[in-house]
């Protein structure tokens, strides 16, 4: 069974290599079928591993180099339910995205499919790695594939710049992570996560804190936490839509997974004495990310960029769950990530359908042009409501679990934050739906130059004005949306997530499994009844807020002009200022990144005192 873990990485990687070599002999459909099959088999492997690991984690030592006398000498894959679930989820998304690409591109070479499979291979490797350096390597593998996929439309200016900003920022993130790894290796002489955690002891000092700051900064850049988030909006707004399905569902999740994995295996020992300070720092970062992402999302009219900023906003909300540093918070974040990833993928697919049929994705350009698309409209609106956390969607359950845990910790502001952020991100999409599918709201003749440039860029991707929506585009979107709805009703999912989070955060058990080979069965958590019914209030409040905000902006031309001017002078100015910070200039982004690392390091330094 453990061997499957290695296969999960090998199958997509080998298929990718073979496909890029054999591409000249194969017709396009054959390449597509092979790549979809490889992605599906990999997902099946990960699902099998998930089922097995839910009973007790699996450890696979490459080349049979098992630990000698409790010291790791080889390189290990450690499969626990949390990692396996993320890998399986990514596999499903890659399969769906490849299926979706079937009709999306007019011309696409085998390299596209190879890159998607390399990306998947990197994700599976990252999720299973029990070794910090290998996490860095797999992060590199998946990042390089993602850079190339983002810039796949290499003849256009937008994707080139998006890929450039993505690659520069994330490479620096990888180097910061490597700095942290080097410092940790210097201190512990180990790269195995369990071994590192054992060697660090329980006393925090400056070097451990510096290493932690560097590792966290490296992963936060991937997770797009403010002020490291600039690359994500640029990359997601310009990448081909099938790639966005994937990026939007997994990239920031992987960054947060990295932080969680490293915290609970390596740093928990030395840092548990400053856990409350750490929680405060992470919560501040999370809340800032959520608010900035949500406001920026609401200020967009390019649908892809709007969704990109809601990815950032929700990454902030996931980080709130993680920042509780408790198993229950982590479990809530995991459920939320899963449901949100499904909804986002479905929404990106709907945007892709609009692009396919109408040749553009700008809210103003498409005003009223989507009236005929009843099914897509319905799916888009339901997706927007699910994104806002409409009960009983999985997104609502995940959010409610995090809110409950935050209340137990005395963090009363978390619920209003979640309501605000969900209302803004959901409201932006509902507003866009009203405009595109119903033709509501005032037309804007001078949709500013930026969006026009973007709109024109995008039109080249597919020939505008297709007559039919292909089933391979609509059905995956429908299925993913339905999965997000059905998620909380899957028997044992909530209890399983809770048990997985308990196992994930249990460092002693992890060390015993990896270094001593003593496996404990993961105790089955008692059946979980789901969030308490009083959580329904904030749930419906966010949906009402989203509907209200959408109605307000669509009907804003009916307000007296004095009111409009007052709104513009207050909120509008702030939004414009915030938008101007997102300059698209890589130098600015790296300056923000440096500032963020300094801030994070400084905050951790203060926590240590």
């Amino acid at each position, binding site marked *: 069974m453990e061997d499957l873990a290695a296969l999960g990485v090998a199958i997509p990687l080998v298929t990718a290599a073979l496909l890029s070599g054999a591409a000249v002999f194969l017709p396009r459909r054959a390449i597509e079928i092979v790549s979809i099959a490889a992605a599906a088999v990999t997902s099946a492997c990960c699902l099998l591993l998930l089922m097995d690991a839910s009973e007790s984690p699996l450890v696979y030592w490459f080349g049979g180099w098992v630990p000698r006398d409790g010291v790791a000498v080889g390189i290990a894959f450690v499969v626990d339910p949390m990692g396996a679930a993320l890998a399986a989820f990514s596999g499903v998304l890659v399969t769906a995205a490849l299926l979706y690409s079937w009709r999306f591109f007019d011309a696409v070479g085998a390299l596209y499919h190879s890159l998607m499979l390399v990306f998947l291979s990197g994700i599976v490797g990252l999720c299973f790695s029990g070794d910090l*350096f290998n996490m860095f*390597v797999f992060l*590199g593998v998946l990042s*390089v594939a993602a*850079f*190339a996929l983002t*810039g796949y439309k*290499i*003849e*256009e*200016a*937008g994707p*080139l*710049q*998006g*890929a*450039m*900003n993505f*690659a*520069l920022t994330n*490479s*620096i993130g*990888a*180097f910061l992570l*490597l*700095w942290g*790894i*080097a*410092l940790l*290796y*210097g201190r512990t002489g180990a*790269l195995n996560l369990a071994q590192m955690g054992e060697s660090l002891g329980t006393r925090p000092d400056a070097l451990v804190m510096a290493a932690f700051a560097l590792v966290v900064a490296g992963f936060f850049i991937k997770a797009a936490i403010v002020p490291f988030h600039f690359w994500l909006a*640029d990359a997601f*707004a*310009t990448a081909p839509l099938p790639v966005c399905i994937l990026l939007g569902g997994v990239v920031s999740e992987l960054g947060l997974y990295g932080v969680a994995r490293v915290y609970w295996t390596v740093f928990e020992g030395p840092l548990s004495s400053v856990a409350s300070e750490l929680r405060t720092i992470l919560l501040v970062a999370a809340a800032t990310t959520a608010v900035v992402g949500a406001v920026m999302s609401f*200020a*967009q009219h390019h649908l892809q960029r709007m969704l990109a900023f809601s990815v950032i906003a929700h990454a902030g909300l996931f980080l709130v769950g993680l920042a509780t540093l408790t198993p229950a918070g982590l479990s809530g974040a995991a459920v939320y990530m899963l449901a949100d990833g499904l909804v986002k993928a479905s929404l990106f697919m709907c945007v892709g359908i609009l692009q396919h049929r109408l040749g553009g994705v700008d809210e103003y350009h498409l005003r009223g042009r989507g009236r005929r698309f009843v099914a897509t409209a319905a799916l888009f609106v339901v997706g927007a409501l699910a994104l806002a956390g409409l009960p009983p969607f999985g997104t609502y359950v995940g959010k409610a679990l995090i809110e409950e845990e935050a209340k137990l910790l005395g963090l009363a502001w978390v619920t209003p934050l979640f309501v605000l952020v969900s209302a803004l991100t959901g409201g932006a999409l509902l507003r866009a739906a009203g405009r595109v599918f119903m033709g509501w709201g005032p037309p804007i003749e001078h949709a500013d130059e*930026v969006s026009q*440039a*973007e709109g024109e*860029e995008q039109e080249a991707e597919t020939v505008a004005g297709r007559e039919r929506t292909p089933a391979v585009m609509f059905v995956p979107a429908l299925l993913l949306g339905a999965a997000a709805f059905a998620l909380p009703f899957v028997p044992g999912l909530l209890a399983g997530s809770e048990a997985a989070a308990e196992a994930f955060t249990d460092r002693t058990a992890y060390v015993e499994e990896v270094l001593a080979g003593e496996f404990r069965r993961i105790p089955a958590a008692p059946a979980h009844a789901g969030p308490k019914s009083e959580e329904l209030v904030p749930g419906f409040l966010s949906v009402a807020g989203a509907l209200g905000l959408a109605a307000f902006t669509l009907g804003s031309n009916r307000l007296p002009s004095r009111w409009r001017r007052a709104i513009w002078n207050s909120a509008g100015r702030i939004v414009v200022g915030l*938008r*101007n910070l*997102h*300059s*698209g*200039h*890589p*130098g*600015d982004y*790296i*300056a923000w990144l*440096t500032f963020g690392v300094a801030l994070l390091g400084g905050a951790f330094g203060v926590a240590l005192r």
Partner: protein
Amino acid sequence: MNFLPYAVAAYLLVIGLYGIVTSRNLIHMVVCLSVVQSSTYVVLLSIGFRSNATAPIFVDIPVGTRAVDPIVQALTSTDVVIGVTVSALLLALAVQVHKRSRTLDPNSLSSLKG
């Protein structure tokens, strides 16, 4: 314990970042990224360094000879591979940017704002 190599590594990191932030040319920016990356090579190799030690090739040296740490060298060479990939990709993108917009100055590229 000698702090000089760590000071050099930190210097490379900071000067590389400064170069990227102030760069007016995408090729120059990619080179600055390589400078940032060089800092990781220096820090890794200096962590594994031992004075009066030989290279870690254990074929023809007696058992127990002092050798520098081979693991950091393996890490460094992996890091070099990743660096080459990223640089190649970024340079290819820069060539494309120049083809399309006839400029390499990031200040005059503005298809992404707000």
